[in-house]
């Protein structure tokens, strides 16, 4: 008796299992997805108007209409490069994903700088920066410039001809500042249609302290500072960067400013998460 009952249960279990095995690809979630897909197809489906509503085309135009409605020539795909012929691109690569993300990553920058608006000195040096990306568009940055100067030809002539020391206008020896970094522009650029380089363009707003040397000028002075620049991605963690920073401050002789042009490289840490 027991064996008969056990056999009955086993047979019942066999049929139940078979039914579930055949339905392995179906569950309520998949049914919902299929329904959604079908709904999308129906939504985008173009339903032709009834034949009675169509105007009757004259005989002369029928051949032209037939000509226009012929399907485009079929493209044979024989190699991988033929894939590029399938979809008619109307634009270069669309800006769908950022190649070099900044959110939650630390940036370090090192580069060479030059003050381009000091007519009395040739000022050049190093620039070090550290930044943190709060979001893709906003970040904070601290900068430090180390500058070295030599008198220009104009300063040499002014001293030689008129015994006037141009050092009295002040010589910038350094700058330390902090910024809010806004990166509203993301782009991609092609080099002679051979390679695409993603880049970011940013704007800095902040202030800092300029170190000065010279006759009759203070040793340091504070003032606002703004800047702009671009970072061209080389890899996901390294980029080439140029920066133009404008520092403004006031001396006893009046308001003055420094325009610093910097070229260098940016490093991003930690490694970007893959997509």
């Amino acid at each position, binding site marked *: 008796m027991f*064996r008969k009952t*056990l*056999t009955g249960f*086993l*047979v019942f*279990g*066999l049929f139940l*299992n*078979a039914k*579930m*095995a055949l339905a*392995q690809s179906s569950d309520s979630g998949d049914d919902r997805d299929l329904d959604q897909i079908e709904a999308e197809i129906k939504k985008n489906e173009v339903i032709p108007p009834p034949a009675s509503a169509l105007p009757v085309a004259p005989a002369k135009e029928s051949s032209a209409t037939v000509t226009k409605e012929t399907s485009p020539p079929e493209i044979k795909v024989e*190699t*991988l*490069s033929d*894939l*590029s012929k399938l979809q008619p*691109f*109307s*634009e*270069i*690569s669309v*800006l769908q994903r950022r190649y070099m993300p900044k959110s939650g990553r630390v940036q370090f920058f090192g580069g060479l700088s030059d003050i*381009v*608006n*000091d*007519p*009395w000195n040739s000022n050049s040096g190093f620039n070090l920066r550290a930044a943190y990306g709060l979001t893709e*568009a906003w970040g904070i940055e601290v900068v430090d410039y180390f500058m070295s100067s030599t008198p220009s*030809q*104009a300063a040499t*002539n*002014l001293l*030689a*001809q*008129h015994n*006037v020391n141009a050092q*009295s*206008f002040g010589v910038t020896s350094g700058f330390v500042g902090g910024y809010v970094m806004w990166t*509203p*522009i*993301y*782009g*991609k*650029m*092609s*080099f*002679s*249609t*051979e*390679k*695409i*380089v993603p*880049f970011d*363009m940013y704007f800095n707003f902040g202030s800092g302290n300029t170190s000065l040397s010279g006759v009759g000028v203070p040793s340091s002075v504070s003032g606002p500072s703004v800047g702009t620049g671009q970072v061209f991605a080389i890899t996901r963690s390294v980029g080439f960067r140029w920066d133009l920073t404008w520092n403004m401050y006031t001396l006893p*002789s*009046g308001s*003055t400013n420094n325009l610093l042009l910097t070229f260098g490289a940016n490093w991003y840490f930690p490694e970007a998460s*893959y*997509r």
Partner: protein
Amino acid sequence: MKFQNGFISILSCFLLVTHVTKAHAQVELPQEELAKETVVPRFDNPTTVKARNIILNGKFETGVYYGWNFAEAIENQSKMGLNLGYHWNEISSVFINYAAWQAGLNGQYTSALSAQPYNLDFTRAPQLQSSLWVNYEWNVYYGKISITKKGISNLTVYPIAGGGMTTYSNKSYYGINAGLGAKFYFSPRWALRTDFKLQYSGQPSPFLQGAMKTSQAAPTPDRFQDTSALGTILDVGLVALF
């Protein structure tokens, strides 16, 4: 009996196997075995730009701009000018750049030098008047930018190189310049243009011992010595293609 025992055994094994198989019907691969990067096919002849929004080939371009020579110590640093150029293909173009320099001096420094105790009057030096340059522009970079994710604009970046002349009140001097420019396009016709150039050009030296103080006799222009200087030029303007 033996048949029943065997049948039950086979049935039990079958049920056990199907249950195990069913339990593993939905295979989940560990995260580290999944593909981590999207891979695009490598084409034999890659072409990154399929269709341009901005067509330069065979077009004329003109525009006006405002500019500065930040390295000018004595003369006025500001100028206004216009550009006129022709693109003979998508990459190469030639431009004529004319600038009218603002009258006066660089007040940031000449004000202090004209005051006590220096009393130097640099209006006695030959005045900077105008300049005319012919530049080649290599439109090798073309791209587009997303502005705050709400708009897309095209841009071109181009190296510039050329030569020209700068005219002072007494004579003209030759010079060369080179730099980099960028154009941000609002439409296929209009663009904001910014050029940054280094300019090495001749000029009269404004420093002349014994002739620049207000108490001294004014010199003739030919007494000022010719020299050369490196300037840093920034031009910002609006251009149109037609």
